């Protein structure tokens, strides 16, 4: 044993060293750092958050207990109901697009082609780069006056006019293109677009990892049976990739549901508080207006959905594990 032996208390050290041979003791010792971090920075804040949501705490005051007052007020607030609906809508639509497009991209990447490795690596870039920074680039691309999309739309429109031989050629200023972030529906669509852009690589690369575990002879067998490419996808690929897909989708639902950065950068919840998600509304109430009790209550509304998702995931993993 190489443990340094203090001169004064050899027996104590020796006893500690021997007790580490007992896995019941060693287990707790090794778990201690992780548990300490989790208790101080997750479990305790969680209890504190539940308590805060039951008080009328405003920044700088201790706050008094008001029962479910915050929750009652939230249910009476249109902004909150909009944010709750937005969160569900945003998560559902974005996840569907990410799953479908991610599967398509994975199937493409799974083929053999030149530069396959560098293509796979570069496609993952949107996922690894700081989200707020890439979202700033999108904010610039959605700019009301200088949007590159609108410039392109205008250019195509002008081309069309000149092809049709109309005289409007120089006067293209009056077609401005959509205000991407100025209209509630369009703003939500833009936020979803950026979320899909950012999350799609994660789906594609995870699905690709799943595709690569499918034995090639299954496809050979399907070929012999004369199955078309589409049929092979439905009857061979999809069933075999389902376990990976479910875990990836569930994981993505959790992250998307709790998203904060996209809305914070792109719209700040606007126009007119119509694009808030639960996380950004919690931030606006808790940090912006200093209304900590209400902010904490809004954030806790994420919990029921997350709990359902987590329980489903645990159940699913366990069932898969038993098999």
């Amino acid at each position, binding site marked *: 044993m190489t443990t340094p032996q203090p001169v004064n208390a050899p027996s104590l050290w020796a006893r500690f060293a021997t007790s580490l041979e007992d896995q019941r003791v060693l*287990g707790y010792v090794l*778990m201690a750092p992780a548990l300490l971090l989790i208790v101080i*920075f997750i479990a305790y804040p969680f209890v504190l958050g539940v308590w805060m949501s039951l008080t009328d705490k405003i920044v700088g005051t201790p706050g008094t207990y008001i029962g479910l007052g915050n929750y009652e007020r939230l249910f009476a607030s249109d902004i909150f109901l909009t944010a709750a609906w937005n969160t569900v809508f945003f998560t559902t639509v974005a996840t569907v697009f990410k799953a479908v497009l991610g599967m398509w991209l994975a199937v493409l990447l799974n083929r053999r082609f030149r530069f396959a490795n560098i293509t796979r690596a570069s496609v993952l870039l949107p996922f690894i780069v700081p989200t707020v920074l890439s979202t700033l680039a999108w904010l610039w691309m959605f700019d009301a*006056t200088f949007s590159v999309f609108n*410039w392109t739309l205008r250019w195509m429109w002008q081309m069309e006019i000149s092809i049709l031989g109309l005289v409007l050629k120089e006067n293209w200023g009056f077609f401005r293109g959509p205000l991407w972030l100025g209209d509630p529906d369009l703003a939500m669509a833009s936020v979803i677009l950026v979320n899909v852009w950012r999350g799609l690589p*994660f789906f594609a690369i995870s699905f690709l990892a799943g595709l690569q575990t499918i034995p090639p002879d299954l496809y050979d067998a399907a070929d012999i049976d004369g199955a078309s490419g589409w049929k092979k996808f439905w009857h061979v690929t999809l069933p075999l990739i389902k376990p990976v897909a479910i875990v990836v989708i569930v*994981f993505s639902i959790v992250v998307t549901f709790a998203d*904060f950065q996209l809305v914070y950068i792109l719209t700040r919840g606007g126009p007119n508080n119509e694009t808030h998600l639960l996380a950004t509304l919690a931030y606006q109430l808790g940090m912006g207006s200093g209304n900590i009790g209400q902010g904490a209550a809004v954030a806790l509304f994420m919990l029921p959905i997350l709990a359902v998702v987590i329980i489903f995931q645990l159940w699913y993993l366990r069932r898969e594990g038993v098999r």
Partner: protein
Amino acid sequence: MNAMVGETYVRRLVIFYIPLFMFVFVMLFPFAWMLITSIKPDAELYNPRISPFIVREPTLEHWESLFGTTLFIRWAINTLWVAIASTAVSLFAGVLAGYALSRLVFRGSTLFGIMIFVTYLVPPTLLFIPLTGVVTWMGLQDTTWSLIFTYPTFLVPFCTWLLMGYFQTIPKELEECARIDGATRLQAMSRIVIPLAVPGILSAGIFAFTLSWNEFLYALVFIHSPENKTIPVGVTSELIKGDVFFWGALMAGALFGSVPVAVVYSFFVEHYVSGMTGAVKG
């Protein structure tokens, strides 16, 4: 793969090359746009009549103003320090916990495993308001320490989860042999299992590093002084003054804030991908 043999060139173009090119183009366009914007003079940036795709007189003025007149270098140092320190803390806690949960039999280990999994799925947005209280109470507000201690809340569960899976792939017999030769449990862990788990630890570390480099919400909420900010928060809060956007400098900041993670990633693509997919599959 065999399907390709009988494919005509046109068919391949339509079902493979064109869609793939579109995907790659869309995925990479925003980065190209950051670069183009950052080297364009203001006179071209804010002229809606000329094509935004062409840079007529490239300039480095935005890069110079980013590095010369803002605290960007300071933010980069802060971000690097926070990312390295919180990754180290998380790997330390994660390796020990992952080893205990995958190898040792002790009362409550199943419960701890579930607890780690549940915390893995708790998003930062759920807890940031009370966590601000905890950080203030510990006197850590407005310091990088507040981030070094709170980032492990999402990194430790992830590292533990990933490493549990990795440790399980290392044969138990190796450890048992070492113990028969007189090694203690701790020695068997530190000299046999951990060295064999280096690829897994590297994967967890790379992934944890990029996660902390990219973190936004905690850094936004806990840090107020410009000189203590990280890149994501510094760029979004200090380079935007009210309604005035300095797009050239902003895009230069976005570009240079992304390059370090992209470089780390390009060196460790395989590890990153196995960390990412491993973390999901468990």
